[in-house]
């Protein structure tokens, strides 16, 4: 009898412990698996655990990228066990899950953190669907900067280019001296991010948003002109064999002094610093021609799945802590990105971060904060745009250009027929 009671007590204890764990520990899913990214997320989660007494938050890494995270989320949603919150991209990435009825609106938290005041307008518009906030930004990276090797520039007496003409002159000087002028990397994102500079040069800020909302066609003369400008400037400057490299391999080429310039998201600054290649000393940065005074950005937000009220409540508290200046700085400084919250003291950043913060403030003042077009377009159109631009960068012939325009225009027409575009 005693033995039965003891086993019963142990069983009850185990059940209680399991259920207490299930009640109090909430998962935050993300795909930051290593390096500065993981350090940033760990700091953000530590900040949440410190700020919220009644719940414990645990980061869960989904190895890979946004595609792998989507796969895991789809499975979790079907199984009815989503995380309390997860790393989400902006705009259509959020909209797809909102349309599926999978996200909880963050109206209360947004009001509590005063989201309309602490985030710039360009940031707000890509986390709200029909005016309702579904994501709270915590990670913002500019993608319109060109990084350059200071030693090479000093050796050749070069200045940071300010327009396309001086950019091409710099490329020629680097090439003549035996350096690879401009690094790039394979994959559907990097060539696309490079293409935004010629695109904005031709379309301007308003035209960029019109392309995103489906008002300007991919077969339009303006889009063709942007492709021509991309071909005549950046593509003509690209390093040999760029398409066979990853972005970290190309960053290594800049560090090793093989490549003069590299247009990449500002996360590359943290990568450089980890290799003791220091901002202001070994590398510096300029805004790509056509984007001076503007900021094109990639951003991650925290989204909360619909479902358990306890998880939603806990996630709300975590997000409130993550949106505070302390929370935002906790992530941005180790990650090497910018805090979307305008109240974060710029002194938290180093040399490179300060430059990016200045650029972002100037762009916000100019009302020229442009979200990544990839996520402003319906998912099928944005993804195909990335693939087609990479193809054009590898083979910038007129035939490929014509196929690119035709393929994308067909997708635009399909999306228009389905009323899939949004005026962000």
């Amino acid at each position, binding site marked *: 009898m005693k033995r039965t009671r003891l086993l019963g007590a142990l069983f009850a204890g185990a059940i209680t412990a399991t259920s207490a764990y299930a009640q109090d520990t909430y998962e935050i899913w993300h795909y930051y698996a290593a390096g500065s990214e993981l350090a940033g997320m760990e700091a953000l989660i530590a900040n949440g655990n410190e700020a919220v007494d009644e719940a414990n938050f645990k980061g869960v890494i989904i190895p890979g990228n946004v*595609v*792998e995270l*989507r*796969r895991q*989320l*789809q499975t979790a*949603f*079907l199984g009815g066990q989503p995380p309390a919150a997860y790393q989400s991209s902006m705009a259509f990435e959020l909209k*797809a*899950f909102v*349309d*599926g*009825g*999978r996200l909880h609106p963050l109206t209360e938290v947004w009001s509590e953190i005063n989201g309309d005041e602490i985030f710039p307008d360009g940031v707000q518009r890509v986390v709200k669907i029909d005016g309702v906030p579904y994501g709270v930004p915590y990670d913002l990276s500019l993608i319109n900067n060109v990084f350059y090797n200071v030693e090479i520039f000093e050796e050749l007496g070069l200045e940071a280019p300010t327009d396309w003409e001086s950019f091409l002159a710099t490329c020629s000087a680097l090439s003549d001296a035996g350096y690879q002028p401009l690094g790039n990397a*394979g*994959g*559907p994102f990097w060539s696309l991010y490079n293409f935004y500079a010629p695109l904005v040069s031709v379309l301007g800020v308003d035209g960029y948003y019109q392309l995103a909302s489906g008002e300007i066609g991919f077969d339009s003369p303006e889009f063709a002109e942007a492709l021509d400008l991309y071909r005549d400037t950046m593509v003509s400057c690209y390093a*040999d*064999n*760029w*398409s*066979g*490299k*990853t972005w970290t*391999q190309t960053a*290594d*080429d800049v560090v090793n002094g*093989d490549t003069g310039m590299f247009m990449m998201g500002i996360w590359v600054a943290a990568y450089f610093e980890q290799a003791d290649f220091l901002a202001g000393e070994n590398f510096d940065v300029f805004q790509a021609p056509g984007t001076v005074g503007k900021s094109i950005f990639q951003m991650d937000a925290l989204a909360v799945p619909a479902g358990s009220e306890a998880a939603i409540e806990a996630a709300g508290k975590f997000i409130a802590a993550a949106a505070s200046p302390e929370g935002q700085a906790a992530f941005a400084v180790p990650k090497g990105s910018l805090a979307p919250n305008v109240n974060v003291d710029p002194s938290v950043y180093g040399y490179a971060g300060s430059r990016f913060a200045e650029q972002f403030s100037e762009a916000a003042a100019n009302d020229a904060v442009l979200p990544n077009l990839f996520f402003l377009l319906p*998912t*099928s159109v944005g*993804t195909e745009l990335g*693939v*087609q631009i*990479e*193809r054009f960068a*590898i083979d910038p012939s007129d035939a490929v250009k014509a196929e690119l325009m035709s393929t994308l225009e067909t997708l635009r027409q399909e999306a228009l027929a389905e009323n899939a575009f949004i005026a962000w």
Partner: protein
Amino acid sequence: MPPRLKMPNRTTRTHIAFLALPVALFVTFYIYPIISSIHLSLHSWDGFSPSMRWVGLQNYVTLLGQPRFFNAVINNVTWVVFMLIVPTGTGLLLAALLDRGIRGESVFRILFFLPFTIPAVAVAAIWRWMYEPSNGLLTTVLELVGLGGLAQNWLGDPAIVNFSLMGAVAWWTTGFAFLVFFAGLRNIPTECIEAARIEGATPWQTFWKVSFPLLWPSTIIVLGMSAIDAMRLFDVVWATTQGGPAYSSEVLAVQMYDLAFGRFAMGRASAVAVYLLLLSAVIIMPYIYYMSKRVTESEAE
């Protein structure tokens, strides 16, 4: 008066009991997913919305109109041809060489088989480094031996990338073919080999006229597995190139994954899965049928 149902005897009941679990597993994990995929392929669904929209055969028709789809089909068929010839042939060659009783046999045995034990993602990481076009190991070695002109943009040139991936997969999977062939060679009765030698056969003749025909069961396993691996190829391609650049290295399983999770087109991805199933059936089923027949005939002989 209705006929009485006859109760199965004890032996039959035992058979049923033993069969119940494997049949349940087969139905749950093989039959149901196939039926579910066919059902999904007739709908438009993003993967998480509560409802799906019926579109009939539209997903199948759309795929047939896309050059991207046919490119993936051609890549899959090319992979089948490659997998049937290169890793299989190399594995047979290595097994035959090692079967001659050379010194350090056990070390070579481990060395040849070792790559097969590495996970696909690690293989991809290793070969991304090997294939770095400027400073990677392959380019550096070619330059060191004066063959720098042969260096390529291994993973970035659409015309080269599939050959590069095949090189990596050959390195990875040859160990399996080697092991099966080596075990097969060791199981051949020595009397047969001795008899051939006494009759004056050269080593070449002994291998082709005696050893190779007796390796038939091993060959069936290796060729069958290679063809199946080629049709379901996904992990190495996804982890190395994600099907790029610009779809050039995409196979059907990669396209299916990209459509399902990269573009929220679960219905179209399921249509790709059904096409893949049909293609596999057309290519592999006749082989399996033929091989099964040969095995039965061999056993009868």
